[in-house]
């Protein structure tokens, strides 16, 4: 039973990828050869698996290229993994920011006010109120939990409760879509294949399980005024990472690691 319980703390970055600490203990820093293991990033979600996990040695750090690059270890100490189901960017963003707000009352008030207003803005843009209000309510309930200073474990449990977690993902997708459509002339220039922003939102943003690219990250960071830093780990460059902050020059509040097709949360 303990095997399916998410643990309380992020796992050390570069933790033991071979799973030698099988009892869930912390792996050694900088260890972890990925050789010979299936890349868990590519596996589908199994029933009952936690959405956001901590220190879970059954799904260790694995990359197609290399173990954790040294450059990343100098900047970050821990990683929190998210289920690779196409919703990982939204779940990672949502959890990382709300968790940080447990310690930042001032930003919490700003974020709460903006979030409370956001539903009316979406309705003004043409979304039908009764189709979005349940998702908005779930989002606001999570923010209120943060305001009550619930223990981090309770916030994590909420993110591992499928309906709550997925409702949050839906709402963050709607905010992303709303921002893309509000700034249509700006974002349309990045679209390929002659699609309109509206089509792009209906095909790549609003449906569940559709993966996120730069454009989604830029739009959500802009919609909520929460700057995001993404460490991009490229395939075939020895695991080098390239940090990008959205929007450029801002002080990031959320740090994510991107390996092709997947986002996880990084901790300083």
């Amino acid at each position, binding site marked *: 039973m303990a095997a399916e319980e998410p643990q309380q703390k992020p796992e050390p970055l570069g933790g033991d990828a071979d799973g030698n600490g099988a009892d869930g203990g912390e792996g050694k820093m900088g260890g972890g050869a990925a050789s010979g293991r299936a890349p868990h990033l590519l596996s589908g979600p199994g029933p009952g698996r936690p959405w956001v996990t901590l220190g879970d040695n059954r799904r260790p750090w694995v990359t197609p290229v290399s173990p954790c690059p040294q450059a990343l270890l100098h900047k970050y100490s821990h990683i929190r993994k998210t289920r690779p189901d196409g919703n990982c960017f939204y779940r990672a963003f949502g959890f990382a920011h709300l968790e940080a707000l447990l310690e930042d009352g001032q930003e919490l008030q700003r974020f709460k006010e903006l979030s409370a207003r956001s539903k009316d803005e979406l309705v003004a843009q043409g979304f039908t109120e009764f189709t979005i209000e349940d998702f908005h309510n779930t989002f606001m309930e999570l923010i209120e939990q943060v305001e009550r200073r619930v223990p981090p474990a309770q916030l994590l449990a909420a993110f591992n409760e499928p309906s709550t977690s*997925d409702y949050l993902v839906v709402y963050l997708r709607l905010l992303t879509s709303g921002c893309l459509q509000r700034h249509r002339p700006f974002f349309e220039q990045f679209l390929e*294949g002659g699609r309109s922003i509206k089509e792009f939102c209906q095909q790549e943003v*609003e449906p569940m399980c559709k993966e996120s690219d730069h454009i989604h990250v830029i739009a959500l960071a802009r919609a909520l005024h929460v700057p995001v830093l993404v460490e991009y780990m490229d395939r075939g460059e020895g695991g080098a990472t390239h940090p990008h902050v959205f929007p450029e020059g801002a002080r990031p509040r959320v740090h994510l690691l991107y390996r092709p097709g997947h986002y996880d949360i990084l901790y300083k």
Partner: protein
Amino acid sequence: MEKIKCISETPKVILKFFFYTELNKNPVEGFSAGLIDDNDLYRWEVLIIGPPDTLYEGGVFKAHLTFPKDYPLRPPKMKFITEIWHPNVDKNGDVCISILHEPGEDKYGYEKPEERWLPIHTVETIMISVISMLADPNGDSPANVDAAKEWREDRNGEFKRKVARCVRKSQETAFE
């Protein structure tokens, strides 16, 4: 605990919304809907009028919509109860259009600008897609291969005759 209860009730709330506000105040031309059983908000019966200027004109087709417990995260299923001959409806009556596919399914690849299931879809937007399917079948992803073949090769012959037979039959049985 209170919270979890509230969320599991949500789909019912949305279905009630459809029932009392949307359908009654803004009926979509060409269909009507209601619960099969007043105690079960997850199963609906819809009547679809064959769109004018199509082979299905004049038909009155009965179908059932079944909503999953985690609606609207996942789409409902739709099944014609009235016999209907159409490339995107299989021989058991199950409707196969992209808007009703589970999220994550990518049968047709993303380059096809088809509509997908969105958690903000409603009975109304689904019915608009179904009516548009009747007017304009998708021959690329047939659920009824024989109907698709006839639609492609003999649209005004055998295909038209079979559809006309269904339309006639639907009128006879619609209000039974």
